[in-house]
């Protein structure tokens, strides 16, 4: 667990608390609660959180050796199976932590934004589990392309409020949830879904997600006798990314360490951290229309202030925020967590990107070769592995941030637009007269 000062809002120059005044007392109250309950385990908060993560969430998740991929790349590939967490994605780690924290703080109502619907789903589940009323804001574009998650949220008892401004994706949903919070701050907690937003959210969400790398690091040592050479994770806002990286950040020695460590000493060395962003359809920006057909914030964005934090952004030359794009709704965001922006500037995290086509191909490959259907977000990490496995060393951990059931409609539609050799033939559906899934 991190020992950061709960009252230090910065990561180098990034981070901070750029929010309307009406929200300042709430985030100060939250920073105080974060310090007491999360960092100092007051009233046994962290014990209860860990117990619920195990019993309700199903932790620990396995670190699985991927036989086919390892043979294909001549590299030991391990999958950190966050797709097996309850709800099918890493999102529950954070949602459960924050809803529980809201209870400890005496809040009576939960609100959250969602992009792909995974965070909304996790929050709705956690709120039902902990008996809290819950409302989710979701852009109308995302509602249309993530219908299964809308059903799940409703079935768990959450209200789903469509956001119609702008392009109706995650960026607008976050703004709208902040507006709700500005009105209801006295009795409501805003469960933000990633390591974004004003302090203390980026640190707190990272700490709730850090269980991923805490487990993965121990599991890797247990299974291989040493540290992995690289950890690869997809990055949108960056919560699975920082979760997968957090406990490896200090493994920053000069050399890789996968030379095994038979002496039983604590393994040392460098673990490379690779954040794979959505390259979308192109990295070229259309200033005129204010559109970036990608979500490659770490690779191509520059510094600015959005949604409460100074971070890297996709913005035009005036500072207006661009409409981002990715085939994967969960990566479709014009900002990124300030801690990741900082780690990229420091050279500790390497930002790379994978385009829509390569992600779709990787989706099918993992499904066919390993029997794991990944979320489209996750597929970006495997797209990078396919192209660049030579650079990642002998042992690679890839974070399987979520499962792909929610994306099947999108995948089939997007695959049929492209000529992908690897894609399965779906014509059987036409032969039996059905169209839907």
């Amino acid at each position, binding site marked *: 667990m991190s020992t950061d000062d709960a009252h230090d809002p910065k990561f180098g120059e990034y981070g901070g608390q*750029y929010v309307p*005044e009406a929200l300042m007392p709430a985030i100060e109250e939250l920073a105080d609660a974060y310090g007491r309950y999360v960092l100092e385990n007051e009233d046994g908060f962290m014990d209860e959180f860990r117990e619920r993560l195990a019993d309700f969430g199903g932790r620990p998740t396995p670190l699985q050796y991927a036989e086919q991929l390892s043979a294909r790349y001549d590299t030991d590939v391990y999958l950190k199976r966050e797709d097996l967490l309850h709800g099918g994605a890493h999102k529950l780690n954070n949602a459960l932590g924050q809803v529980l924290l809201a209870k400890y703080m005496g809040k009576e109502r939960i609100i959250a934004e969602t992009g792909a619907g995974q965070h909304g789903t996790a929050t709705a589940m956690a709120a039902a589990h902990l008996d809290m009323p819950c409302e989710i804001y979701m852009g109308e574009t995302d509602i249309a392309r993530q219908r299964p998650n809308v059903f799940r949220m409703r079935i768990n008892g959450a209200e789903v409020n469509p956001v119609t401004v702008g392009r109706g994706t995650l960026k607008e949903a976050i703004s709208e949830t902040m*507006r709700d919070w500005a009105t209801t701050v006295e009795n409501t907690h805003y469960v933000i879904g990633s390591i974004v937003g004003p302090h203390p959210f980026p640190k707190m969400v990272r700490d709730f997600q850090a269980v991923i790398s805490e487990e993965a690091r121990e599991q890797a040592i247990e299974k291989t006798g040493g540290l992995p050479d690289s950890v690869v994770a997809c990055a949108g806002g960056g919560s699975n990314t920082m979760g997968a990286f957090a406990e490896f950040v200090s493994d920053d020695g000069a050399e890789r360490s996968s030379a095994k460590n038979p002496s039983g000493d604590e393994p040392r060395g460098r673990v490379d951290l690779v954040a794979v962003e959505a390259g979308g359809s192109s990295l070229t920006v259309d200033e005129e229309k204010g559109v970036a057909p990608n979500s490659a914030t770490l690779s*191509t964005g520059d510094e600015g*202030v959005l949604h409460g934090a100074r971070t890297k*952004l*996709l913005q035009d030359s*005036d*500072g207006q925020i661009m409409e981002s794009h990715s085939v994967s709704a969960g990566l479709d965001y014009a900002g990124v967590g300030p801690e990741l922006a900082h780690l990229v500037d420091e050279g500790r995290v390497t930002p790379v990107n994978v385009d829509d086509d390569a992600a779709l191909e990787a989706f099918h490959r993992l499904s066919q070769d390993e029997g794991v259907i990944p979320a489209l977000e996750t597929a970006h990490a495997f797209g990078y592995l396919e192209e660049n496995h030579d650079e990642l060393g002998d042992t690679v951990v890839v974070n399987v941030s979520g499962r792909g059931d929610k994306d099947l409609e999108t995948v089939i539609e997007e695959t049929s637009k492209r000529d992908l050799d690897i894609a399965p033939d779906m014509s059987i559906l036409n032969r039996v007269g059905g169209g839907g899934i």
Partner: protein
Amino acid sequence: MGLERAFADEPAFVPYLAAGDPNYEDSLAYVEALAEGGADVIELGLPFSEPIAEGKTIQDAIVRSLESGMTPDRFFEFVEDLDVDVPLVCMTYYNLIYQYGDSESRSDSGTASGDTASQEGPRPFVEKAAEVGIEGFVVPDLPAEEAGPLREACDEFGLDLVFIVAPTTRGDRLERMMEQVSGYVYVQARLGVTGARDDVDDATEASLARLSDWDVPKAVGFGIKTGEHAEEIVAAGADGVIVGSALVDIVAEGHEDGDSTEAVADRLESLARELKQGAVRGAQERPQPERT
């Protein structure tokens, strides 16, 4: 420094409009109509794509303004083109202020490169604003904790920096703002985002009471839409009233109905007059301060 002067003789009426809503030319006429109607300070919105503190009325105004081509440079031209004799305050979000000095270095490449972080911060924007005659700023997403660089630039060019005090603002936060505020303080009448409402909130009186020892004028905003509202608020001790959404509604309706620029400007001027007169009446109802 000098926005205080607008509050010196009688309670001030401080209207807001988004510059460029629904287009450049009409917007010039509308802002001038507010001045005709008795505005003492005008808050001009420079639209940002993610206005997290605004309700639907002003969000829509911002969309109309952006779609009609408003940018920071156009905004500065707009201020120069305005024919008003009233102090102007720029209301915008911090990213636009922060990025301004970078525009030239960044606009020449299709793909922004990662290493063009702003070196100068808010200074170039403030310098340009001062040059065109802006006298102060309201920045809803910039709390006192993050305001140091903007405050410095404002001091350098002699501009005021207005802070928003919310019903939830207490203790240390009030102290920090009191140290940095100048011109006037924007007292947020209720929780939530901007937007016209039908009643006056009790939180207003409580907020004014908390600020009783501040030596800058106190202007109350959020939800005011009639002369009676303005009157009650000034009677309760405010030095001025800030009105945005009720005026933006007139612009929006005129735009939707295809009304002439003159007709919309007349309506704005007449509501402005009603609000100003309400504020003046409110001052007369106030218990007279006991002076020695």
